[in-house]
């Protein structure tokens, strides 16, 4: 299934450690994390709170600095990669600014990066179409449903052509029906844009449905307990979730999560 031979790694972590110094003493947020993400992978990070899944994503985004080991993004340090606009980041809450319209929210990175006005308009039009929000540019965030807001937030992360899309529990606050729909759309978007996606989630079905690679993590210290290369085909209708293959992968994820807990 896995074509490691001729693809170059987009994200590569070797013996990655991160220790936070807190008032209650040091906290080991990540320990000995080894992971290779190839171009075009859809990688989910799953695990209970405190397992370091978000922390790892933030390290890739250079929002946190590891205290040990090595981490490269597109062959560069995370900070260099950020300056090269390697990734777009979708935060946990949609993080749209209520005083800006949807179009203006998407323009925010473009404005600050100094794109020309015409270029900004063009890109906003393109990404709004990509996330199925054509015609909603002039609306304010509160005029949109939660799912639409989250799509707008994804559009913003896509606006400047980063090859990597990092998503931190983007659909965590949404109900299951909306979530199913967005998952389907996200897969379609991924197929169309061929981006590499890093996706943090709490939900086993979501992780299995979306991913080509599932990274199971466990807390105290945050570490990887299992990496599963999904045997599911790239083309995935929602009812694939009833197939034996799907249930088997979900089972393995659940086992991995349980194994992590038994260590406690």
């Amino acid at each position, binding site marked *: 299934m896995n074509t490691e031979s001729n693809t170059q790694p987009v994200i590569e972590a070797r013996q990655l450690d991160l220790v936070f110094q807190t008032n209650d003493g040091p906290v080991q947020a990540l320990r000995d994390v080894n992971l290779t993400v190839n171009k075009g992978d859809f990688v989910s990070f799953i695990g209970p709170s405190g397992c370091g899944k978000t922390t790892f994503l933030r390290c890739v*985004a*250079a*929002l946190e600095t590891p205290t040990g080991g090595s981490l490269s993004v597109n062959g560069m340090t995370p*900070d260099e990669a*950020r*300056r090269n*606009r390697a*990734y*777009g*980041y979708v*935060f946990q809450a949609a*993080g749209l*600014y*209520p*005083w*800006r319209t949807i179009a203006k929210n998407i323009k*925010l*990175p473009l*404005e*600050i*990066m*100094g794109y020309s006005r015409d270029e900004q308009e063009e890109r906003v039009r393109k990404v709004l179409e990509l996330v199925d929000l054509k015609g909603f540019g002039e609306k*304010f*965030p*509160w005029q949109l449903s939660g799912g639409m807001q989250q799509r707008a937030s994804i559009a913003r992360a896509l606006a400047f052509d980063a090859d990597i899309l990092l998503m931190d529990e983007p659909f965590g606050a949404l109900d299951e029906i909306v979530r199913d729909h967005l998952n389907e759309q996200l897969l379609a978007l991924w197929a169309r844009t061929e981006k590499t996606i890093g996706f943090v989630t709490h939900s086993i079905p979501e992780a299995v449905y979306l991913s080509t690679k599932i990274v199971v993590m466990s807390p105290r210290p945050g570490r990887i307990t299992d990496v599963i290369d999904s045997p599911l085909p790239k083309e995935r209708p929602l009812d694939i979730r009833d197939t034996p293959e799907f249930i088997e992968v979900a089972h393995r994820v659940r086992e991995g999560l349980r194994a992590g807990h038994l260590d406690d």
Partner: protein
Amino acid sequence: MLLILQGDAELWAIVLLSLRVSLMAVLISAVIGMPLGAALAVSRFPGRRGVIVLVNALMGLPPVVVGLLVYLMLSRSGPLGVLQLLYTPTAMIIAQVVLVTPIVAALTRQVIEMLAEEYSEQLRSLGVSRLASVPTLLWDARLALVTALLAGFGRAIAEVGAVIIVGGNINHVTRVMTTTIALETSRGNLALALALGAILIGIAVAVNALVSAVSLRAEHEGLTHA
């Protein structure tokens, strides 16, 4: 008594000079104070806290002392004496700029710092320098910044200590509302003093009404997402 209001040319000349001096002062203060306040909000350097405390403290500068200092700068023997600005409207504008700029800078700093906090993660994920975000932040905070400017204007138009020292309250040249009120009251010409007082209060009320209208709108835009 207030019949003077009807078409007294001298009175209106005084009102117009007041407005001209204070509006000009606020405009210049905006150009200096806003970028300064914004830069202070997003930059990080040793001693930053101290600068913020200083700017905040300067908001409460006593106008008379500012008048005195500007007077010393502009007087014939002062460092800027050659410009011969003392007892001109320009001198009054300079004094008011000194008074208003800290107000604009301090309020801008507060507003922009809060906004930058909101944008913080997003901006960090974009990997742009903090200063690059200043124009965007200023634009997004525009309503709150208008409030800051109006606060500065309220201070400038109502202030008497600084303009009377550097302007000299010369008839037809540097006589503004506040200085005229002070003078006419001491002369016993209460009619003119009261008329000007009424106009000044009217302006103060109008400015305050504007401030609350603007901040109401800013609040509305901020809250409607809830």
